[in-house]
């Protein structure tokens, strides 16, 4: 009997720290620390290029919590990149302050500052004349780590971003695919374990499928590392998928709304934001919830190397009409139905329906729904990191969770509106009493 008591792990959440022991494990053993991020505070940050009539970034004030992934999203030319590049002072602000972890960094040496801030850009920015390992080793070497420590760190980082160190260690960037380059770019940014990571449209130059994978990887990384990440994109769907909070920027980086993705989708602050959210907010809402957040059910499985007779017996006697057939590596392979039995004739080769699509626990409900809709059995297999079977999700579960989710959103939006109204009333009162103070934008 193959035993698989894994579905329970679906509930184990980010807090599962501690190295998993075996160092060969592809991921997970790296830097299994709790929140390693730092708070970032931008205070009235302004960039005015000489000769330009208007500032490119006009008085941005923003508080970013430690361990939070904040996405700056807005139309091209709204100054979101400028805003990001002022945090590591690649662009010197005209006025305003930046503090990281409470320390004012507006006037300290920018080179030292940048070594403490990871930086990943579009098209990876890898140095083409250096090998993957040399690229990753740059920052650790600059901050003076020992040779041995740097070497170990490089392996660790390659593992972390899902590239086999033995295979990729001494390759040159041009020998990698776009997606692989981007992974190395992220590895380089994280190599010296900076508390803050800045990402400037890092996935802008890769194809949609790879981008999807990279986004999933980033979500996984962030669950392991808890860095403070500021991520710039013009793709609102990407923002929703990745952000703990999203800052929607209009021209000159004026913050139109700075809130959780749920709040922005259900309660956009104004027409600009709702225009940016675009149509299909309810569908986009599906992008916000992951398979790990819904109930992953157990399902009867057999393995291809089980004796045929056992499989027959199970199919005949079991209460389900269907069985999930796993391959030798415990990966979902086929759906077997009772009706398929007649066609078996000594081999499983021709029986059952092949499984084309399965999802990981990090996949969004939208991906899961897509898979359920296209799968003949009306359910989708959930797999772990190496593609091994964990459980299944069916249509009914999905529908129920979507309903619950939307209901909760409606309640939250209502509460939000009440608090906004209360806030506005308070401010009006304060203004009338002459003690008006500017407070942050939408909370």
């Amino acid at each position, binding site marked *: 009997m193959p035993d698989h008591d894994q579905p329970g792990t679906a509930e184990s959440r980010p807090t599962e720290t501690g190295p998993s022991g075996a160092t060969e494990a592809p991921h997970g053993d790296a830097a299994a620390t709790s929140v390693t991020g730092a708070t970032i505070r931008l205070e009235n940050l302004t960039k005015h290029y000489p000769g330009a009539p208007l500032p490119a970034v006009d008085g941005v004030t923003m508080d970013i919590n430690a361990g939070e992934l904040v996405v700056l999203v807005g139309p091209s030319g709204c100054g979101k990149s400028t805003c990001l590049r002022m945090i590591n002072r690649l662009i010197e602000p005209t006025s305003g302050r930046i503090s990281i972890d409470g320390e004012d960094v507006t006037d300290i040496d920018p080179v030292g500052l*940048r070594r*403490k801030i990871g930086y990943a*850009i579009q098209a990876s*920015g890898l*140095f*083409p004349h*250096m090998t993957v390992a040399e690229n990753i080793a740059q920052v650790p070497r*600059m901050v003076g780590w020992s040779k041995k420590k740097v070497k170990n760190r490089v392996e660790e980082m390659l593992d972390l971003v899902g590239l086999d160190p033995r295979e990729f260690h001494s390759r040159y960037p041009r020998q990698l695919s776009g997606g692989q380059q981007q992974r190395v770019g992220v590895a380089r940014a994280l190599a010296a374990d900076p508390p803050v990571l800045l990402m400037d449209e890092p996935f802008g130059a890769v194809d949609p499928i790879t981008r999807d994978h990279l986004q999933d990887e980033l979500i996984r990384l962030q669950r392991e590392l808890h860095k403070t990440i500021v991520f710039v994109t013009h793709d609102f769907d990407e923002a929703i998928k990745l952000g703990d909070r999203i800052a929607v920027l209009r021209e000159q980086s004026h913050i139109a709304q700075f809130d959780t993705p749920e709040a922005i989708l259900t309660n956009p602050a104004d027409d600009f934001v709702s225009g940016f959210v675009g149509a299909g907010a309810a569908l986009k809402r599906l992008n916000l919830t992951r398979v790990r957040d819904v109930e992953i059910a157990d399902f009867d499985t057999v393995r291809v190397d089980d004796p045929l007779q056992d499989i027959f017996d199970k199919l005949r006697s079991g209460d389900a009409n269907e069985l999930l057939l796993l391959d030798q590596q415990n990966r979902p392979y086929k759906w077997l139905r009772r009706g398929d039995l007649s066609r078996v004739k000594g081999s499983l080769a021709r029986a059952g329906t092949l499984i084309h699509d399965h999802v990981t626990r990090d996949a969004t409900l939208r991906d899961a729904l897509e898979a359920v809709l296209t799968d003949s059995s009306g359910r989708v297999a959930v797999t772990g990191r190496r593609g091994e079977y964990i459980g299944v999700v069916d249509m009914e579960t999905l529908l129920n969770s979507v309903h619950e989710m939307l209901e909760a959103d409606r309640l939250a939006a209502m509460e939000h509106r009440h608090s906004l109204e209360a806030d506005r009333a308070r401010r009006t009162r304060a203004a009338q009493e002459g003690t008006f103070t500017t407070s942050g934008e939408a909370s």
Partner: protein
Amino acid sequence: MNFWEYLGSRYQQVLVDTYQHASVVFQCMVIATVLGVAIGVLTYRRQWAGNLAITTTASILTIPSLALIGLLIPLVGLGVAPTVLALVLYGLLPVVRNAVVGLRGVDPALVDAAKGIGMSRTARLFKVELPLAWPPILTGIRVATQMLMGIAAIAAFASGPGLGNLIFRGISSLGSANALNQVLAGTLGIVILALLFDAAYVLIGRLTISRGIRA
């Protein structure tokens, strides 16, 4: 006396001249490379400075070599000094131009990335910009060397070292028994040296250009 008999009897003199020719070109190229790359590094960031450097070195190259050496004699005297000075000046243009163009051609995104991960200006130059600009710079050095091979022959006019002495001696004694042989030996020597240097550059390229950017 045919050419081979001439070589047989005078090979020592020819070898000494060849060695001196190679040596003066090599040394001048080292100086021109260091100077040229330095000028390139100092000027490429500013449009006007880079262009000024290229234009200046280009106008030096338009001075006929015989005239330049002739002009240098009253300033620095005869012999090695005017030779080295002239060769370095002529060797600058290809190196400076390729250094400026090469450094300017480095992808700004890479410089941005280098800055962004915390490299100082010096580190950026030595770890990112120069290695990436190295292939065009090396091409410049190669072109300059080829040019200097020929120009170095003129140095004999100022009593400088090298195979030019054979050529000049031959030309001034045209009609005598060995005149033609001398010119031929000098010229052939220069051609062979040029080919050998070129081969050396191919090897240097193999050894110094990262596999990641080799064409």
